[in-house]
């Protein structure tokens, strides 16, 4: 039986992500945010399941759709929200925005605005861990679209010849922006690409947070010993458009509705109640708690000042 604390934490994390993203969505709808955002709603089980299997000292790289990974890796919600609004109190002092949140002290090597941009960086982090003879591992998140970037091939090939401790997690949400994965590749499972590198490739249900957690945990345990990279494909779906400006011409409302019925959070809550890990009232309390956290973060962000214009030219160099 899994540790009850971890099971409860995973629910809390998924709720944090869901409510955070819903708040961000509201900011966008009300025109309170500059730029765009890429929401993780519907995909919470992948980030939370995988990252819950990590120790604090392990590392991740994230994507342009990175709020989920950052929150799962214990990012400060206030600093994240402030960064979304471009405030000086944000993670990157307002200089990065949604796609450039990082916290190296927490093992988060950063979200990335370039599709696939984090893949070689994560690979290099794994190389460093191996060189330093540490037994930590790296989780490298990216989407189905990124698997067609050349650097995906280059990086995993190198990881496979040097035996680097890294799990390449494909968040297959069926679309690379508006381009369906079936049109983008000639194979049925992206994990099959692992055979090109002589490593293991697995495809699992990305909406089953327990399944993601247990699979990742097993892979990590093995990896701490043999340091052989692996590809883990998680099938999931994003409820909202690619970004704020998405007319969603590439998919049907029916398809979205179909996947909403497979909500990872509803599914998990049912499990927790059925296994008597939490009572419905306890779940409601957790939900209230998280809503308050998000409200606090939103207030902190709104009350925070913008940076000074003169700050723009700072931090180009160390």
């Amino acid at each position, binding site marked *: 039986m899994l540790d009850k604390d971890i099971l409860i934490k995973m629910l809390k994390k998924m709720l944090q992500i869901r409510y955070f993203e819903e708040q961000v969505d509201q900011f966008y709808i009300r025109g309170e945010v500059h730029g765009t955002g890429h929401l993780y709603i519907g995909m919470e089980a992948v980030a939370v399941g995988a990252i819950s299997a990590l120790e604090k000292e392990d590392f991740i790289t994230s994507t342009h759709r990175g709020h989920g990974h950052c929150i799962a890796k214990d990012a400060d919600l206030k600093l994240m929200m402030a960064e979304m609004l471009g405030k000086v109190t*944000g*993670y*990157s*002092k*307002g*200089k*990065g925005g949604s796609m*450039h*949140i*990082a916290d*190296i002290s927490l093992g988060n*090597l*950063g979200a*990335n*605005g*370039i599709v696939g*941009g984090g*893949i*070689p*960086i*994560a*690979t*290099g*982090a*794994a*190389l*460093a*861990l191996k*060189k*330093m003879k540490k037994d930590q591992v790296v989780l490298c998140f990216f989407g189905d679209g990124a698997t067609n970037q*050349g*650097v995906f091939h*280059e*990086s995993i*090939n*190198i990881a496979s*010849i040097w035996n680097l401790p890294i799990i390449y997690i494909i968040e297959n949400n069926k679309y690379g922006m508006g381009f369906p994965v079936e049109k983008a590749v000639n194979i049925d499972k992206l994990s099959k690409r692992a055979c090109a590198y002589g490593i293991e490739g697995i495809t699992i249900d990305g909406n089953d947070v327990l399944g993601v957690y247990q699979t990742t945990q097993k892979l990590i345990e093995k990896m701490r010993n043999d340091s052989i990279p692996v590809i883990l494909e998680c099938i999931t779906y994003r409820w909202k458009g690619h970004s704020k400006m998405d007319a969603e011409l590439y998919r049907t409302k029916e398809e979205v509705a179909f996947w909403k019925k497979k909500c990872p959070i509803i599914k998990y809550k049912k499990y927790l109640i059925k296994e008597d890990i939490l009572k419905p009232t306890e779940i409601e309390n957790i939900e209230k708690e998280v809503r308050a956290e998000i409200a606090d973060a939103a207030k902190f962000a709104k009350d925070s000042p913008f940076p000074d214009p003169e700050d723009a030219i*700072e*931090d*180009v*160099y*160390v």
Partner: protein
Amino acid sequence: MREIYYLDAIKEALSQQMEADEKIFLIGEDIGVYGGAFGLTVGMIDKFGEDRIMDTPISEQAIVGIAIGAALMGLKPIVEIMFSDFLMLALEQIANQAAKIHYMFGGKTAVPLVIRTPGGGGTGAAAQHSQSLEAIVNHIPGLKVIMPSTPYDAKGLFISAIADPNPVIFIEHKLLYKKVKGEVPENVYTIPLGKADIKKEGKDITVVATSFMVQKVLKVADNLLSKGIDIEVIDPRTIKPLDLETIIESVKKTGRVVLVEEACYTGGFTSFMASEIQAKAFDWLDAPITRITGLDCPIPYSPVLENAVIPSEERIERGILEMYKK
């Protein structure tokens, strides 16, 4: 003091720093067993082992990205990109990642990375193996760019580049490797980045040149002296950040400027320098600024064509004489 080749000066800097700091490792194509395309790293894998002299598959973008990841984790990777033309393959990681990470993450992370790469033409290697691309990396905030022209400068600047916590592109010139010898101290020494060097003092014309062009200009300087023209030769050494002060001081003395670079004319580094000089020393200029650069075409193969494109000593001398008459 002993004289050593430019190539050996860089190798010595590399070896000395690797001996001093275990966190430094070299990564690139055929740098280990092969000894480097130009032989710069011959023997180093025997000395330092394959964990620190890492041969890779042909994957420039991943090589640079991997080095970035390692740098974020506190190691000090030095990437060799076999020909500077191949920087283009890795430009995503260089420009979008390495150059920007420190800024995008609010100044909380550093990418202490050095990319060494042989650049320039004159070897008959033709269009895709002969370019001078410093203008491209000069344009990206967050990078530093160095182009040493002598063995002494190469060693001192390379050691400084390794010590610098920012991503540095260190462009070596292929023709300097085994053609130019110079006095190089055996001990470890540094030359600060962003400091130009007056290679020859003079009073009539300020001539600013980079990389291999410095060597050509110094030869031309002797010819000109016999014609009664005393040029001052300035080598910026660091392209970015540029030591404009030293150049402006010289311009105020001479009133005449010629800028020499191998790269092609449009958008070359000398166009940036010219713009800066006219903005800051307009009242001291007695003539328009002259630029002597590569022609606006790819580097051709045939030696007759190659010589026509890359500034020759003859073309440089002619250019300086013409400007002096104005």
